[in-house]
């Protein structure tokens, strides 16, 4: 069973120090930390898409970067293909990049404006593979074909392409080295609705074609539900619920998940449901609330919630929840 897991994240933690100045470091007793990711654990099976969903500031992007070792974790372990990848020597870490790729949110700022598409796609190949010119051109044509573009696009600059086409280039670049895991951080948020669904369907197609595993990070619950095999909901640096998309959406258990799902504006005027309007905004991750971090906004909080921190517990097969009140 263990061999089925491509990625295992164990108690992963990332704090950012707030007082970085020399003065503050010398004179302040204990410096403050932004607890961006605070002890998250989950496993991703081979060929699975795990969606991470949450509002801005919940730590979902930091989680992605820390898993990829683009940020070094404060604590915890990341096991990729049966091997810990935390604290690898830099040469081994570099080789790891072939297998771990990323698709970024903004296709406007993640492509070098002064490079032709051909060169953007050749860069990963030049870094890791020693191909002849001809072979490389062939590979680039292949990559463009995978993402629904043609060789004609290869001579262009990023500004000559539309947002959707640019995101296709971002995807082709991530595919270039035949990775095993792709972390997609809000890959469709910057796109128009009609283009968004094109990219989502492309991601699904490529996953089938190449047996990819995705970690799909997004704030858009409808999008995450559509693409994911399992979903982790994050709040203030912690995973508060984890389960299958349909069961999470039909029957959300954690009060935060319930409010989040009820807040999605559905494009269907006849769709009747209970709306839960949460009061206030998300508290600061520098001094997160004691006990359960959601208790300050929770409509059903009891005294225990502010005193004792709940743990992520298995409440049903394939369903974990971090709440005292769920049996």
């Amino acid at each position, binding site marked *: 069973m263990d061999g089925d897991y491509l990625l295992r994240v164990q108690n992963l933690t990332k704090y950012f120090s707030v007082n970085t100045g020399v003065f503050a470091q010398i004179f302040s007793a204990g410096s403050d930390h932004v607890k961006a990711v605070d002890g998250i654990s989950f496993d991703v099976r081979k060929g699975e898409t795990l969606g991470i969903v949450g509002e*801005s500031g919940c730590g979902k992007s930091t989680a992605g970067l820390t898993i990829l070792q683009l940020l070094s974790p404060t604590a915890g372990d990341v096991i990729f293909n049966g091997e810990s990848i935390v604290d690898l020597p830099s040469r081994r870490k570099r080789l790891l990049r072939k297998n771990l790729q990323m698709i970024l949110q903004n296709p406007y700022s993640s492509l070098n404006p002064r490079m032709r598409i051909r060169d953007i796609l050749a860069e990963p190949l030049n870094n890791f593979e020693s191909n002849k010119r001809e072979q490389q051109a062939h590979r680039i044509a292949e990559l463009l074909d995978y993402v629904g573009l043609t060789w004609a696009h290869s001579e262009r600059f990023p500004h000559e392409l539309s947002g959707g086409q640019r995101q296709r280039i971002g995807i082709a670049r991530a595919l270039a080295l035949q990775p095993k895991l792709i972390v997609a951080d809000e890959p469709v948020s910057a796109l128009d609705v009609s283009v968004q669904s094109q990219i989502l369907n492309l991601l699904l197609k490529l996953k089938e074609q190449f047996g990819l595993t995705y970690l799909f990070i997004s704030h858009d619950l409808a999008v995450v539900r*559509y693409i994911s095999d399992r979903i982790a909901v994050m709040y203030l640096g912690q995973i508060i619920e984890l389960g299958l998309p349909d069961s999470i959406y039909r029957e959300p258990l954690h009060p935060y998940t319930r409010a*989040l799902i009820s807040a999605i504006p*559905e494009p269907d*005027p006849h769709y009747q449901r209970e709306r839960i309007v949460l009061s206030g*905004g998300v508290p600061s991750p520098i001094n997160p609330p004691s006990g359960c971090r959601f208790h300050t906004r929770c409509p059903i909080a009891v005294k225990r919630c502010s005193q004792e921190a709940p743990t992520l517990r298995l409440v049903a097969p394939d369903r974990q929840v971090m709440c005292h009140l769920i049996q």
Partner: protein
Amino acid sequence: MKAGTKSGQSLGSNTNITGVKGSQDILIEVADITVSFRANGSALKPVDDISFHIKRGEILGMVGESGSGKTITALSMMRLIEPPGRINGGHIIYRGEDLLQKTESEMRKIRGKEIAMIWQDPMASLNPVKRIGDQIEEVLRIHRRQIIAGNKESSALKSMATRTEVTLAALEEVNIAEPAIRMKEYPHQLSGGMQQRVMIAMALVGEPSLLIADEPTTALDVTIQLQILELLKSLQKGKAMSILLITHDLGVVAEMCHRVQVMYCGRIVESADKNDLFDNPAHPYTQGLLKSIPRHDVKKGELDSISGVVPDLTAIPQGCAFHTRCPMVMDKCRQQLPDFISLSPSHQVRCHLYCD
């Protein structure tokens, strides 16, 4: 043709049932407005000959993708189009008067008082170096005379103390806790949702009859979005104000609006009552949009999408602008712009499929 559409619309407003309570009369009518920008010798038309109206107490949704002309339409209604852009011809009739005939100083009395606007990005729209209380008071100072004329008992608005009171009340109205403390703070001290509440307070302090909300919740998280939408709904009901809600999110439309118009490449391609639009979308573009949103009952792999991309403003296709992406395109579509025809008194569409 144009005259026909107009009489068709006013007929519609007399007979249809939109769920709008009370008076059914028209607050503002935009007729045959084109906005053009001159660039490199050629004229670009981000808004091309559009006509529509908003009734009193109605929430009209304007949906479309980026570049469809939604924001330019809103700016033209406030006469905020700056050179090299200009409004070519047409009328904007507000309470029986044509806004395009007004002088700049007359317009200044209308903006913020009769027609107010809230923007997508509250952080970029608030003045970062001014306390939020002062920013709201600014509206009161500028529109003091009209506010006094409209509201006899508050003739003391001149005095600082009364203005502060009105500001406090305005902040309270948008559910900001501890308004007395908040009004002394600067925008960066507030969260995104709070900033948008301040924007709404500022827009409503002049008691406008029309609020133009341009993507008011796009920059906000879903749980905060729900708070702001609920707030806008309750304020709209309480004040019997009209709202033009500009958004790209059909979910927000389903939640908020009485009537919807869909824009594509600077034109209105479909206009209908909300339920009609979602139940019987007529234009292939509207149908495509609705099928390409992941919603609660869509299964994996079943999401449709519209092929291609929104055309660039410099290369808007001949005939029907959607013909390059339309799954039901006919020869006629490539040559001839379809008329805006009525399917029912409250449902119009610009598509050749429905001609004859």
